[in-house]
């Protein structure tokens, strides 16, 4: 893998070299709560966790933000805007870096990406602006609302992942509606695991397009990309093969998050020193995940992701209730 993607080898070498220099030549001062070693460990640990998340996320056809944001919002006391801004980094960079391999392998269909990309960017920019306005207007209660609604959203995402398994791997629509036919949302790709070409034609382009406005809003508002919804919509509603849906969703969530993240950057919610290792981990893990996706089945990874999502959603709902109603629920 590393030798077949030379740029990945160079990047990993640069990152490892960089972290070694940061460890041995550090001039970072300690604070009352963090020693210089703690600070270095946070950076390196973030990179390693981010790499693992990216591999799982790309193979599972979701954004890494769907794993990162709920866990961080549920289990840490970091500011929710910082988490959501970093969550967008986590969500988008594995998608961004896997764009090249997906386009080259023809797993991602450029027409599908462009068709769904327009509504999703509109929704994303509106969602990011709404997130900051709600945060400023409602403070802690606003954060509670975000946690509670995100927790409930996670249940739906887990359901989407659960139902998006074997039976819809290669959907065959019985009827292609006139608008979808006119839009020519069709394509073909080489399915390595079957050893043959798979042809497909997407359907229900109108409801699918409308759903993507809403999905973009969710991505921008919660800072999690919403890749599971994108994959679900493309696979279950528009009947794309699951691998095509996963690849297109990776490219699409990168586009939607690239729109949303500027709002967080210009506001100051993206703290670069904190976000950088998460970005680098996504890039390294994204390349690995994209190459693995071409040759393996995604069903096992989906089950792992469902378990992670369900645990996160329980914690998010509890913390949301605590913050909105000012009560303490004695459950870890």
């Amino acid at each position, binding site marked *: 893998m590393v030798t077949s993607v030379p740029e990945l080898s160079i990047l990993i070498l640069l990152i490892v070299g*960089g972290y070694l220099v*940061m460890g041995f030549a550090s001039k970072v001062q300690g604070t*009352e709560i963090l020693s210089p070693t703690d600070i270095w460990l946070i950076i390196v640990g973030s990179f390693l966790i981010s790499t693992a998340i990216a591999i799982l996320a790309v193979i599972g056809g979701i954004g890494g933000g769907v794993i990162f944001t709920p866990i961080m919002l549920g289990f840490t006391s970091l*500011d929710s805007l910082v988490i959501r801004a970093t969550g967008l980094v986590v969500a988008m960079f594995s998608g961004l870096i896997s764009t090249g391999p997906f386009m080259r392998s023809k797993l991602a*269909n450029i027409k599908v990406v462009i068709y769904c*990309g327009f509504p999703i960017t509109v929704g994303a*920019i*509106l969602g990011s602006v709404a997130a900051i306005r709600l945060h400023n207007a409602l403070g802690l209660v606003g954060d509670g609302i975000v946690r509670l609604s995100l927790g409930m959203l996670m249940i739906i995402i887990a359901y989407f992942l659960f139902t998006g398994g074997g039976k819809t791997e290669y959907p065959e629509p019985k009827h292609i509606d006139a608008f979808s036919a006119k839009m020519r949302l069709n394509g073909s790709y080489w399915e390595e695991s079957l050893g043959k070409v798979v042809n497909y034609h997407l359907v229900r382009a109108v409801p699918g397009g409308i759903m993507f406005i809403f999905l973009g809003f969710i991505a921008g508002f919660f800072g999690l990309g919403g890749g599971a919804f994108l994959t679900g919509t493309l696979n279950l509603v528009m009947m794309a093969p699951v691998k095509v849906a996963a690849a297109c969703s990776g490219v699409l969530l990168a586009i939607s998050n690239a729109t949303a993240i500027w709002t967080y950057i210009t506001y100051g919610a993206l703290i670069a020193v904190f976000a*950088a290792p998460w970005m680098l981990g996504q890039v390294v893990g994204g390349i690995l995940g994209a190459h693995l996706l071409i040759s393996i089945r995604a069903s096992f990874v989906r089950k792992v992701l469902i378990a992670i999502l369900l645990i996160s959603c329980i914690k998010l709902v509890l913390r949301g209730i605590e913050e909105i109603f000012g009560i303490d629920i004695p459950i870890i």
Partner: protein
Amino acid sequence: MKDDSLKPPLAGVIYGEIVYWGLLISCVVVIVGSVLSFLGNSYVPVSYWLSTIWKGESVAEIWKGAVGALPNGHWYLDHLSKGDALTAFGISLGVFPVIPGLLLCGLTLLKEKEILYGLLAIGCGIIVIIGLLGLVPAT
């Protein structure tokens, strides 16, 4: 056997390659910026950034303690010799290739007589530019 129909469309390849290589270049910038920050050349000390985040301070509190107020813009462009600003610039640089990628993808589609898809791709690019310029006010 694989056939010519599996050749990826040029517009998709152009978008994919611009984003892919642009992002890899940005990673190098982010690594250099991170190292510089740890070597003490930072606009705001690394320990301050991470400690305040770790304490759960809000974005407004973090920036107020660092430089007195929220940046409300692309603050890093004025401090590119500093490691943390260079890191922020690198992350932004990683996001940026989506814009030329979409615009060139759109132009390629237009050249291939795919008028609707070409215009949609350019429209996507313009929406991302609106986000970059902060034309939809968040505060």
